[in-house]
């Protein structure tokens, strides 16, 4: 079966290169003990890494050849733009960039919202049931009780989802850097699609939805 722990696959290079923190190394090694697929994956990554490391550095041409190809500075006539034109151009540029930014954001959000999401492989669970499930794909619903952005330098964003009737029951949800879901606001009621796992590290020991694949804010 294909391993779904993409949250760990992305850390394999750090581990291979000896650049992972002790907690990341511990997580990776613990997973490797149980996952033969990832052991193979790691060996293959190391083979590719070794081949890349063999590529030779290539000397640049002599400096004189570079300067000979550069256009003579003396031939260039400086052109000074009047300051009022410069200010107007800068304002127009900022306004255009803002307009384009908002337009892109709006169209991207609209298209993401309209894109069909295949939820057939996901199973809806109560938050307290996540700890006991073996289903990787789950849907949970609750209240966002805490938001913690990018706290572990891995570029991810965490929030804590609590059961609305039992605040002691919670799961920690993690959105990977670059993924589509946006971090919901604290206090909002949300439904979350993602991969269930248990983080057994001593400082955590909690159930997680990691990575979060979709977040729906409920009315």
């Amino acid at each position, binding site marked *: 079966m294909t391993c779904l722990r993409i949250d760990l*696959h*992305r*850390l*394999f*290079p*750090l581990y291979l*290169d000896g*650049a992972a923190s002790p907690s990341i190394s511990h997580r990776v090694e613990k997973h490797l003990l149980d996952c033969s697929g990832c052991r193979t*994956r790691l060996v*293959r*990554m190391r*083979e*590719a*890494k070794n*081949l*890349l*490391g*063999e*590529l*030779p*550095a*290539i*000397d*640049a*041409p002599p*400096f004189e050849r*570079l*300067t000979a*190809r*550069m256009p003579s*500075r003396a031939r260039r006539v400086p052109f000074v733009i009047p300051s009022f034109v410069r200010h107007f151009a800068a304002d127009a540029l900022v306004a255009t960039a803002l307009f384009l930014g908002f337009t892109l954001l709006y169209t991207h959000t609209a298209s993401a919202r309209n894109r069909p999401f295949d939820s057939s492989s996901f199973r809806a669970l109560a938050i307290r049931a996540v700890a006991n499930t073996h289903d990787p794909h789950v849907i949970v619903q609750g209240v966002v009780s805490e938001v913690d952005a*990018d706290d572990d*330098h*891995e*570029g*991810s964003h965490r929030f804590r989802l609590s059961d609305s009737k039992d605040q002691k029951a919670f799961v920690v949800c993690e959105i*990977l*850097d*670059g993924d589509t879901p946006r971090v919901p606001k604290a206090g909002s009621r949300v439904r979350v699609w993602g991969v269930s796992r248990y983080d057994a590290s001593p400082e955590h020991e909690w159930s997680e939805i990691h990575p979060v694949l979709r977040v729906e804010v409920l009315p």
Partner: protein
Amino acid sequence: MQSLSTDELRELYDEYGSRIHTLARYTLGSDVAAEDAVQTVFLKAAESRANFRRESSPGTWLWRIAVNHCNDELRRRRRSEEVPLDAILGWADDADTPEQRHSVKQIDKIVARALLELSPKLRTVAVLRYVEEMQYDEIAEVLGCSIGTVSSRIARALERLEKVLRPIVRS
């Protein structure tokens, strides 16, 4: 805007010229394109001394110019559907000196060609890490992203490369 003096430019070139040439060669895929890229990068550097002064590290600033230029060049090629000469003639056939022609050994040619199968983002990060031997935090600073994103891109690059190279590695 102030320009760099020839001496300042030479100092910068001595320190980073070959490294930037190497990055350009492996991301753009030919000696001629790499040499043009190096020229453009150092020309841009020479003309924007003000930015150079503001940067905490001239190296990071120069790497950013180089990475952006290589990406722009690849985008321009894609728009014009330009096929690099060596893709038609074979790797390094556009080299104009014997040293350049033999600068990349056979197995390295295969790996270098496999690199061109990667998307520009993955190719750049793989070259910066394993050919230029830059640290994760340095790459993150140059690319303006997190260390996690760098590692994630490298993971995808290595997996893709291994798939492309598997028949050769196994034989």
